[in-house]
């Protein structure tokens, strides 16, 4: 049998497992820097954070659902719809192919809120289908994913736009929710990074300090026990899917602003990226487990891979293979935390 030395080795091992994903992030950054030291710069950090901000908001939305033991496949298509919706109402007057030719300049917040609201609405519908009609989340959101793509394509194909990419977005829009930043030079922070951090903070509070949050973990942890405890499971699920939808809506708006345009194919497969970031960040697909810092680290890992590997010239095909491996390896390690074998 094992001696006390072995116990100490176990402790070190279990410490490693506990923080495995943080190590992965550090190793990635160090590895890439070793190959090309110029990667280690404020510029890289800026770019990674910029790209990761929308992803983080989508992943946080996905985390809401995953923690209750569900899954939300509609995320990516919601992002696309919200991007098209907001962009269609925020073009400059001089643009030749306006989506709404006669539309006066709306206050910025109106289209933004409309897009978020539509996200919330679709989320609510998901929630109703899951909670009232007991359709498994995978199926319910698969359905809404397909339907939302249809809706978005219809909208995008309306006259006079007829599926032209939406461009010519107003500078106040692309700056406030896209490329703008406060401060200058090294000491600048992009607005969308601030937005992502605020959202993360809010979500952290919801997960940890509210009845809704605790109920979510309970439902994911043991739904029967949650029902017996008198938790209003249906209502909680409704809120959860709605909150997720609203976050996808916000992310879609930011995606349009960041890239300065939108098409109906925006957001394709983002739901899988979001789920991958969540599981790499330690969210259990079985429900009941997951933290906001974990999700953020998961998103950052993919941000570093996307940006860093391109930076050192790894081909996109290899990048996909590496991403796939990271998902599997990270989760395989993370799972060890929960195995009963001690």
């Amino acid at each position, binding site marked *: *049998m*094992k*001696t*006390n030395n*072995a*116990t100490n080795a176990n402790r070190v091992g279990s410490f490693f497992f506990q923080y495995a994903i943080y190590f992965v992030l550090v190793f990635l950054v160090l590895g890439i820097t070793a190959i090309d030291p110029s990667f280690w710069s404020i510029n890289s950090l800026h770019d990674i954070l910029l790209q990761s901000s929308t992803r983080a908001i989508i992943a946080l939305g996905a985390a809401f659902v995953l923690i209750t033991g569900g899954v939300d496949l509609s995320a990516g298509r919601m992002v696309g719809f919200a991007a098209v919706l907001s962009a269609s109402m925020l073009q400059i007057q001089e643009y030749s192919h306006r989506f709404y030719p006669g539309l006066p300049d709306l206050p910025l917040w109106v289209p933004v809120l409309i897009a978020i609201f539509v996200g919330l609405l679709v989320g609510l519908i998901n929630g109703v289908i899951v909670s009232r009609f007991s359709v498994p989340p995978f199926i319910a959101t698969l359905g809404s994913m397909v339907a939302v793509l249809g809706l978005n394509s219809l909208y995008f194909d309306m006259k006079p736009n007829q599926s032209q990419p939406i461009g010519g977005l107003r500078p106040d829009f692309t700056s406030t929710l896209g490329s703008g930043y406060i401060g200058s030079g090294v000491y600048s922070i992009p607005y969308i990074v601030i937005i992502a951090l605020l959202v993360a903070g809010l979500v952290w*509070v919801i997960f940890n*300090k*509210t*009845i*809704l949050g*605790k*109920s979510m*973990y*309970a439902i994911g*942890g*043991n739904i*029967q*026990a*949650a*029902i*017996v*405890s*008198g*938790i*209003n499971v249906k209502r909680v699920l409704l809120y959860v899917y709605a909150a997720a939808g609203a976050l996808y809506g916000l992310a879609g708006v930011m995606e349009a602003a960041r890239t300065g345009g939108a098409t109906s194919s925006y957001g394709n497969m983002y739901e899988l990226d979001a789920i991958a970031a969540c599981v790499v960040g330690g969210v*259990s697909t079985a429900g*009941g*487990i997951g933290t906001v810092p974990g999700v953020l680290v998961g998103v950052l890992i993919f941000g570093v891979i996307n940006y860093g590997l391109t930076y050192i010239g790894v081909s996109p095909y290899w990048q996909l293979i590496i991403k796939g491996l990271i998902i599997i390896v990270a989760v395989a390690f993370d799972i060890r935390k*929960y195995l*009963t*074998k*001690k």
Partner: protein
Amino acid sequence: MPENKFILEMNNVSKDFPGVKALDDVTLQVRPGTVHSLMGENGAGKSTLMKCLFGIYSPDAGEILLNGQKIEINSSRDALDQGISMIHQELHPVPRRNVMENLWLGRFPVKSVGPIKLIDDKRMYQDSIALFEDLGMDLDPHVLVGSLSVSKIQSIEIAKAVSYQAKVIVMDEPTSSLTGTEVDQLFKIIQSLKSRGVSIIYISHKIEEILAISDEVTIMRDGKRIGSWLASELTTDSIISKMVGRDLTQRFPEHHNIPGETVLRVEGLTSPFSKAFKDVSFDLRQGEILGIGGLVGAQRTELIEALFGLRTVSSGKIFIKGKQVKIKSPMDAKKHKIALLTEERRATGIFPVLPIVENTVMANMIRYASPYFLLKQLPMKQDVQQKIARLHIKTPSSETQIKNLSGGNQQKVLIARWLLTEPEILMLDEPTRGIDVGAKFEIYSIIADLVQQGKSIIMISSEMPELIGMSDRIMVMCEGRLSGILEGKNRTEEDIMHLATKFMV
């Protein structure tokens, strides 16, 4: 080869978990062909010791000898190969498969058809029948396991152990969900195992059982071995004092309940399902403990789950303080200040991966709600700490995941959860299942206290002494119907049994 005095020896085994020394230099020596019982309070380390034996945990120190030979056990597979089997505290059958597939899972007999290997159903059936006959078990290999009672599923597990040529079979609280006759059945099987030279390590909190079945008893406390004795040298009182470390003069606290007016009135409650409860009417008075007795299958659980809004009823009325109410969900029940501690701790009680704090406050978060939706953390933590202290819940901290607590301590957390809701009517379904004698007394005291404060209790129990010792009135059910209500002090187990079988043919 010379016969060894001991078939199994676990010498100086230690095991640490973060914050707990679960086993501290424990030694257990089992003679061949005997029943060796393991006793101790909740969290004493009994299950942990057995999990070390069965390769689920690896001990930090110590050695295991089988037949005098030192052996390494790194997985359950190893243990099975060495002839050590375990019937777990919680059984995990594959419900959608039949008896024989569960029995031979992982080692199906095969026949070759040319180059292809197919499962040999016929041989599997015959082997199963032979095994069951040999052990005197009455089981049909073709029946779906999901439709069987706990006791039958346990029989399958025991048959499985025997088919592995087990020399040592560990049974962790095997009788906690069995009825009296089923326990007798189990004891017969144990006798026949003994006569084949198989040794049993038997864990239970039921002292009467231990004294009836064991040859030797090892008692543990706080992860340490207190000692081992021949069962014939022990008495109920001596076991209790060794386990608890002090004398426990009474099994039940003194209580003089003065029931007041009727708080709950049930009239003709009937389930839409023909096999469930029918036409049940009764009253519950303020400051009263109403026991519900009956055999497993008497629909007692179904009845109180219906009162809690977990099951539908087709007809009947419920009145609370004289006003008719509709209870369609646990949320409604909570509004009427009703609480229910369910029977199945794992399935409907605990949130395994959540900390104790969450597990304790989950039914009552509204109490800690502040404006702006935020939960008040401090009062929450304080209340939980206070419950941990009051119920003597053994845990390293209130942030420990509940799945890491011993079975009995999990039960106490669930009791704490419902106490926090400050119910007027507390319904308890087998409240002391898997709970040690000391803790039982604590739970009885808590119940007695609540009743003193004018709360009302409904308590389902399959333990006759508990029903008789605690209840003001005992309502007995048989096959979904009320077969009688026993009042007064001179109730006997025979009275209850008589009513519990009243409608049986």
